[in-house]
């Protein structure tokens, strides 16, 4: 075979070396993004604070102590003071953070999963299935989330599970639309056509080609979804829907702290508020970094 000269090999090796593995490239690009790194650091610190913190700084977050209520920061044993019911604020931030993160993560992931399935099915099958499924999405989108939440908050008795479900019910729309778009474009890709030409069916197209290729979008979106879900938790608290006491979350701490704005009890407002901003911001930074990282792969032709 003279046409295929052995000299091809060195060129090929070179080409292979020039492009490191996908995962490594993704990590590389991600770590180059300083904000994304900052996001990871903040998130890790917050996780440590919420989950390891209580071991280091154990407090009673179940029994109220009215004699210790509303102590200002610096009071003995209470670095950040106490809440209006005498809970130690630092300890309270820790337990609240756990709920916020858990609810946010669970809701974000649930919304993404459901949305991805909904979107993939809608986009892949197209036609009237798509039309019906998308009209439902449109309708749900046409009612602004807050309006829906206000009505729901007038109906629902909250618990962690319920909060997760409510948030997921509001949040699945955006991944659904996104994944549908991806699925629509992916199903016409030549490699999907090639696969169909070999006799492959719809399931294979969806699970071997469409979903894996949409995974970047899905992961990035999931990150933003978690961020949004944590925000939603705080909005629900603002609307009066929060985890039943004595459990709490940052949103509830913030919105009950608002009551004391006028008293100058800043420690009941800002730590929780800042915690929300930090964690949501961190997830957004990370999502942004991930998007860059995944986009690099897509740009690479």
């Amino acid at each position, binding site marked *: 075979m003279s046409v295929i000269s052995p000299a091809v090999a060195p060129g090929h090796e070179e080409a292979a070396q020039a492009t490191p593995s996908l995962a490594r490239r993704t990590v590389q690009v991600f770590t180059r993004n300083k904000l994304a790194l900052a996001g990871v650091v903040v998130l890790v610190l917050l996780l440590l604070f919420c989950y390891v913190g209580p071991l280091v700084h154990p407090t009673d977050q179940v029994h109220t102590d009215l004699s210790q209520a509303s102590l200002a920061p610096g009071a003995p044993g209470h670095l950040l003071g106490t809440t209006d019911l005498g809970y130690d604020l630092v300890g309270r931030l820790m337990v609240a953070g756990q709920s916020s993160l858990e609810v946010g993560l669970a809701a974000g992931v649930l919304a993404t999963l459901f949305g991805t399935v909904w979107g993939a099915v809608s986009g892949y099958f197209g036609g009237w299935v798509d039309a019906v499924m998308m009209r439902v999405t449109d309708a749900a989108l046409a*009612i602004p989330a807050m309006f829906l939440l206000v009505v729901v908050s007038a109906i629902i008795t909250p618990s962690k599970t319920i909060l997760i479900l409510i948030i997921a019910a509001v949040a699945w729309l955006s991944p659904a639309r996104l994944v549908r778009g991806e699925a629509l474009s992916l199903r016409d890709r030549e490699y999907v056509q090639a696969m169909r030409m070999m006799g492959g069916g719809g399931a294979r197209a969806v699970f071997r080609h469409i979903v894996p290729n949409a995974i970047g979008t899905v992961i990035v979106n999931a990150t933003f979804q978690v961020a949004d879900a944590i925000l939603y938790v705080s909005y629900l608290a603002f609307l009066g829907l929060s985890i039943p006491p004595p459990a709490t979350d940052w949103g509830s701490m913030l919105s009950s702290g608002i009551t004391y704005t006028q008293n100058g009890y800043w420690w009941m407002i800002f730590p929780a508020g800042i915690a929300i901003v930090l964690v949501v911001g961190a997830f957004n930074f990370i999502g942004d970094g991930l998007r860059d990282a995944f986009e690099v792969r897509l740009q690479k032709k």
Partner: protein
Amino acid sequence: MTGFLVKRLLQALVVLFLVTIIVFLLLHALPGGPARAILGPKGTPQQIAHFNEVQGYNNPLPVQYWDYLVRLFHGNLGESYKLNESVSSLLGQRLPKTLILTVLATIVAVAVAVPLGLLQAVRRGKPADYLLTAGAFLAYATPVFFLGLILIIVFSQAIPIFPAEAPQGTSIGSIFSGFSGMILPIATMALGIIAMFSRYMRSATLDNLTEEYVRTAMAKGQSSRRILAKHVLRNALIPLVTLLGLYLPTLFSGALVVESMFNYPGMGLLFWNAAQGSDFPVLLGVTLVVGVATVVGSLVTDIVYAVLDPRIRSVS
């Protein structure tokens, strides 16, 4: 063009129909129905029965829904249980206010976000970009009510320059006569939008900067600044219209929180109060109007987009 419009309108109708169903079902999930909420703990069983009878709550759900649709078809949105006014007259007073708030906030946001985004794109990877990006994400990460609270604490309490309450007058004119009261609500709403739009402008500008027509313009001897202003800006701004359409629900959501924070007598506040008091006709009416506004809004932005973008405009 008409074909497209008819199709979009039909879709919009279907969507609205679904919206009413969703809201209708949601409301009827309320235990005790509105009677308890309206009549309070002192409401006697007879009164409750009478109320349910008069309001038709004893009928099966589909019948109630059908009645609702029929009334809707006659332009009758019902009477508020609490406010002793018809829902349509309530909406007539409140909707314009919400529109003023959202439109002003959007104008402010766009006016700020566009140059910010451009600046970030031009300074890509420089400290200014990082700073503004971080700022945008943090602004986005701040719950609107927390943001509003901070603004109130700073600009109304610590340095009392702006009132913490929006103008209360019934007329539209009163909004403008007491405009200082609008500053904080508008700022609260605008900040979040700025965060999103500036991110969009940044990436749209970056995308356009890599387009070949930019190189062509440079090859003509055009300066970078004018290329940005004459060529890139226009191409990046047109899709912003669509983005606005997509953001309508978010805008309304923001308006709801801002209105209830600043006691601004718009639709969001109306809705909020109605929800507290189970004022079903108002809840249904507002949701319907918001749904219509959202659907029509995105329809309009689609059309505006098409009119602005010559690529789509001239196909018709």
